[in-house]
C-alpha cells in the first residue's frame, strides 16, 4: 500500500490538508506532504483533490481468473411456495444487468416441493431457473441455505448475485459472502454496469443522509441485496422462457444446528408496513393509544398499513413491529401520511425516500414539514376523522 503526491499536479491549494481526518497532510511550501506514519489510507484526500494530484496504490490482485465468472443470479426467496414480493423486482434489475453484460440471468430457488413454483418463475424473463428441492430447505435456516448457495456459486460461477434485503436475505447472504471471500453491498438503491464492466452499487448510509457507490473489483461474485419496493418489478409472460435446472441435493450441505419449532403469524398487522404502498403513521401528537384506532380505520379505507414513530412505540401505544425510523423499519411507500409526528431526524431516516409525504401537525414549525410534499397545519385528531367521514360519504354516494 502506498500513497504519494504527484508534484507536477499539486497546485498548493491545501484542500487535502482540510480533508484528512488524521491531520497527516501539511504543506512544504506549495507542495502537499503526507506523513506516512499517520496515514491510514482512507482516501479522503484522493477524493478531495480536484487536480488528481494524490494517488493510492493498493497492491491488490484478483486471487483467481475472474473471467471464469459469468451470468447474473437472483436468489428467488420463497416461503410456502410463494415468491417474496421483492423477487420480481430483482428479476427486473437482473435482466437489465445481464443484458448489459451480454450474459444469462438465472433465478435460484431453494425449498421443498417447489417444482410448481419453478415452472411459474420460468415464465419471467429469465434464462435459467436452478431448483434445489429438499425437505431440509422447507423453511429458511442459515446453515443449509448458506452452504447450498455457496456450493451453487462455486459450481456455476455467476458474476453477480442479487437477493432481497429481507430478514432472510440479509442474514444468510453475509455468510455466503464471507465463505466465498467476496464483497456484499447491502440495501442497494442503484445497480449499474459501468464502462469497465463492473457492477456499480449505490446505497444509503448514515440513515440515508449519505449515498455511497461501492465496487467489488477483485473478487467474484459481486453480491448485493436490494430492498422491496425500491426497483420496478417485471411481470411474467404466458409461456416458459427459462430452462429449469434441477440440482441433485447433497445431504452433507443440509445439516443445521438450528431447528424451527414454531411460527406465530402476526395478526395485528393486516398489511406489513415494509410491503405497503400506503402507510398512515402516528406519533406522540395522537395523544393516546386509543387514537391509533382512527389511523387504522383510515388505513383500512385506503388500503394502507399503520406505522408509528419511536415515541409512540416507547410509550407502549404501538408494537415495535410498526416502528418506522432509524432503530425501527425503513419504508418506501408510494404514500406516507404522517399524523402528529414532529419529524425527528431519526424518524425521517426511516421514511424520507417515500414517493409522496403528507404531514398533519399542529405545530407549523415541526421539522416534518421540511420534507413533506403536502403539509397540513392542524390537529390530526380533528382532520383524520373528517377525512374518514368524507371518504365514507363519497362511498355511500356512489
Amino acid at each position, binding site marked *: 500500500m502506498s500513497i504519494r503526491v504527484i508534484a507536477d499536479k499539486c497546485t498548493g491549494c491545501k484542500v487535502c490538508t*482540510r480533508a484528512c481526518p488524521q491531520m497527516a497532510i501539511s504543506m512544504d511550501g506549495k507542495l502537499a506532504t503526507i506523513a506516512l506514519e499517520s496515514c491510514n489510507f482512507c482516501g479522503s484526500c484522493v477524493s478531495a483533490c480536484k487536480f488528481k494530484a494524490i494517488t493510492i496504490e493498493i497492491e491488490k490482485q484478483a486471487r483467481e481468473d475472474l473471467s471464469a465468472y459469468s451470468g447474473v443470479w437472483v436468489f428467488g426467496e420463497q416461503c410456502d411456495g410463494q415468491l417474496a414480493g421483492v423477487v420480481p423486482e430483482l428479476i427486473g434489475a437482473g435482466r437489465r444487468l445481464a443484458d448489459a453484460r451480454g450474459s444469462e440471468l438465472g433465478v435460484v430457488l431453494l425449498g421443498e416441493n417447489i417444482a410448481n413454483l419453478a415452472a411459474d418463475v420460468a415464465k419471467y424473463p429469465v434464462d435459467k431457473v436452478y431448483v434445489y428441492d429438499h425437505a431440509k430447505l422447507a423453511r429458511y435456516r*442459515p446453515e443449509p441455505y448458506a452452504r447450498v448457495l455457496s456450493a451453487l456459486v462455486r459450481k456455476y460461477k455467476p458474476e453477480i448475485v442479487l437477493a432481497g434485503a429481507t430478514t432472510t436475505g440479509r442474514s444468510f447472504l453475509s455468510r455466503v459472502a464471507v465463505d466465498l471471500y467476496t464483497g456484499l453491498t447491502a440495501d442497494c438503491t442503484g445497480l449499474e454496469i459501468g464502462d469497465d464492466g463492473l457492477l456499480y452499487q449505490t446505497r444509503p448510509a448514515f440513515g440515508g*443522509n449519505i449515498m455511497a457507490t461501492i465496487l467489488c473489483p477483485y473478487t467474484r461474485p459481486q453480491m448485493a441485496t436490494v430492498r422491496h419496493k425500491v426497483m420496478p418489478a417485471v411481470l411474467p409472460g404466458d409461456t416458459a422462457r427459462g430452462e429449469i435446472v434441477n440440482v441433485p441435493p447433497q445431504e452433507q450441505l443440509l445439516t443445521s444446528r*438450528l431447528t424451527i419449532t414454531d411460527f406465530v403469524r402476526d395478526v395485528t398487522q393486516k398489511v406489513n408496513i415494509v410491503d405497503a404502498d400506503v402507510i398512515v403513521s402516528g406519533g406522540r401528537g395522537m395523544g393516546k393509544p386509543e387514537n391509533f384506532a382512527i389511523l387504522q380505520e383510515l388505513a383500512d379505507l*385506503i388500503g394502507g398499513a399503520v406505522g408509528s414513530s419511536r415515541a409512540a412505540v416507547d410509550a407502549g401505544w404501538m408494537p415495535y413491529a410498526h416502528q418506522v425510523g432509524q432503530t425501527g423499519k425503513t419504508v418506501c411507500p408510494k404514500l406516507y401520511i404522517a399524523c402528529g409526528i414532529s419529524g425527528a431526524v431519526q424518524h425521517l431516516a426511516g421514511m424520507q425516500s417515500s414517493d409522496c409525504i403528507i404531514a398533519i401537525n399542529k405545530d407549523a414549525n415541526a421539522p416534518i414539514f421540511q420534507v413533506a410534499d403536502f403539509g397540513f397545519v392542524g390537529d390530526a385528531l380533528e382532520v383524520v376523522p373528517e377525512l374518514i367521514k368524507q371518504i365514507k360519504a363519497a362511498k355511500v354516494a356512489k
Partner: protein
Amino acid sequence: MKIVVCIKQVPQSTNVKIDPVTNTLIREGVESQINPFDLYALEEAVRVKERLTADGEASTVTVVSMGPPQVDAALREAITLGADDAILLSDRAFAGSDTWATSYAVAAAVRKLQADLVFCGMQAIDGDTAQTGPGITVHLDMALVTYVRKVREITTKRAVVERLLEEGIEVCEVQLPVLFTVVKEINEPRTPSIRGKMKAKSAQIPVWTAAAMELDPDRCGLKGSPTQVVKIFSPEHRAGGERWDGEPAELATKMLEIIRERATV
C-alpha cells in the same frame, strides 16, 4: 460460560453532511455513542449472565470493539452498563476495513476469548449493513440466529429463542456456541450503576493488535476488503412542498384529493 458482546462506536447523529469542497464527510464536532442496537445486545448478555449464574453456571460478559483508540470510551461505558471487562481491537492495519475484514478481525478476538455465546446488535446506524455479525459466525463456524426478540431458554448447550420476522414470530432451538443479533424489542437497557461506574473508571482495557491476534495482514483493513467505496455524495435534497392551514373539514377535503391520486379509496 463466556459471553462476548461486539459493539461499535458510531456518530451521535447520523445527520451527517458532505463537505462540498473536499467531498468527504464532515467529522468535526460530531460526538460519538455506542451504536444504539448494541445497548440491547449488551443488556441481554448481562441478563443471560444473571440467569445462568442463578442456575449455578458462573458466567462473564466481555465487550469487544474494533476501532481507533477513542473507542476506549465506549468500552468503559459498556462496563458501567454491566459488562465485566472489555477488549479494544485497534491497529492501523484495520483502517479502511469493510464488513469482511471487520468480521475477520472481530472473529479472531472472539476465538481468542473462547466465547460460547456472542451478542451483537441488529445493525450499526452508520453502515446499516447488518453483515458483520453473520460474517463472524462463518470465520468461527458458529451457529447464527438473527433478529432475536426474546431468549426463552438458555443453558450451556442450547438455547430457545424467538425471532422477529416480517410476517410474525419464529421460535427456534439452537446449539451453542451461537451468535445472536438482537432487535430493540428484546429488552429495556438498564442505566449505569454506581458500581459499574467505579469499575469502568479503574478498568484496564487491553488493546489487541493484528499481530497479537495472529491475523493475516492480507485479510485486514483496506487491503483485505473485497468491497471499496468509490464515491460518496449527498442524496437529492428533499424540500418541503405546499402547505395549508384552515378548518379540519377544508384540510380533509384537500388531503382527500391528494390521496385519491395516489391510492385506491
